[in-house]
């Protein structure tokens, strides 16, 4: 049981990394990864929202939608729940923990329309995970998001000082750098499977 959870956790971070292997959440990856502190702040907010929305949507799906044969409403219900949840968390943080709001809260509105959040919720259901597995999957996905963001922030700061051919300047070279980082993550694919084999 515990072994299985560790397997899901490690797979989500390395072999199935949300950004580098599954292409979920590319917008913040390209937009916010320029500085290390913004990359970390954004990633922490993503981990938090992913775990929270998984914890909330799982019972809604199991006890409300599946029970009443309303599975086809999943997409519409989940996106609304996530949007409402993010808004609520933002309001609560602003009122009661302003210090945390100042460091994390500013990233919250950006996350509503982040595909990683809706993606993890949908993936959990497609994979038929139970509550604990879903939660671990969400946190693992978030940590993987953070690993990729932080690593890429480092790569980008090196890119700044490079002499780049004119036609590749800007977005193209950023994408090619992302391709190389993604290539390194491809190497993890067999590793995680073999540890638990």
């Amino acid at each position, binding site marked *: 049981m515990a072994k299985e959870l560790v397997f899901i956790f490690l797979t989500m971070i390395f072999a199935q990394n949300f950004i580098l292997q599954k292409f979920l959440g590319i917008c913040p990856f390209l937009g916010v990864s320029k500085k290390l502190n913004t990359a970390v702040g954004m990633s922490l907010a993503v981990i938090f929202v992913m775990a929270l929305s998984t914890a909330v949507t799982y019972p809604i799906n199991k006890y409300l939608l599946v029970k009443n044969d309303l599975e086809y409403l999943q*997409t519409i219900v989940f996106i609304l729940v996530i949007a409402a949840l993010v808004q609520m968390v933002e309001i609560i943080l602003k009122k009661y923990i302003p210090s945390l709001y100042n460091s994390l809260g*500013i990233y919250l509105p950006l996350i509503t329309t982040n595909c990683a959040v809706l*993606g993890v919720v949908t993936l959990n259901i*497609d994979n038929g995970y139970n509550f604990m597995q879903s939660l671990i999957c969400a946190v693992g996905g978030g940590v993987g998001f953070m690993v990729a963001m932080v690593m890429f922030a480092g790569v980008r700061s090196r890119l700044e000082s490079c002499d780049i051919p004119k036609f590749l300047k*800007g*977005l*193209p070279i950023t994408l090619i750098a992302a391709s190389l980082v993604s290539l390194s993550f491809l190497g993890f694919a067999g590793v995680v499977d073999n540890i638990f084999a």
Partner: protein
Amino acid sequence: MAEKKSLGKELTKGIILENPVLRLVLGTCPTLATTTSVTSALGMGVSASIVLICSNIVISALRKVIPQKVRIPAYIVIIASFVTIVQMLVKAFVPVLDEQLGVYLPLIVVNCIILGRAEAFASKNGVLSSAVDGLGMGIGFTAALFVMGTVREILGAGTFMAGIKDLIGGTFNGFDIPFLNENPMLIFVLAPGGFFVFGMVMAVANKLAESKGQPKAVLHGCENCPMAKTCSIKDTHEGCNTKEAEA
């Protein structure tokens, strides 16, 4: 006559000048994820275009009814409804495509192109021009996906349009590229190949734009983000303003 001319402009701007993927850098996630083959790229492009056109029409028709304050949630509900309809249609009639697109089919809801067009165009313009704008943007999106899918499928699998029969019917079912068919460069259909081909296609698009005197594509960060107005990040933090995001 003037009306007709501007409609033509709405249609063509989305295809070339304001191509959502290559010029505005929106919808990068599906662009990278679903272009492993031409068939799934076209499937994604067409599904997203249908949602885009329908949601543009409805949002434009309701633009005077939806209160300003709750417009974003209202748009999301409208878009999510159409995504659900498309999802059910795909599941019923093209189950192969449903398998190929997987989680990315419901994720059309959070495709920034759709919410972005709702906010930037459909909420300010009439029904007809919104529909045409959606059609143009949809064609532009599909065309960009087609280009990416062609490059990745030919290099990565050595085929072209394999499995297209399941999508559109008929007898044509793609063909094999000699040599590459026996020695495919698998990396191009894997994740790194996606980033690499996208970077190269973007570089070519930038080069073409430059020769026509158009500015380079930059990630606009907050400016093109549909949440920009409700989002507090751009005032309090420099992490997301245009200057910062200018790669």
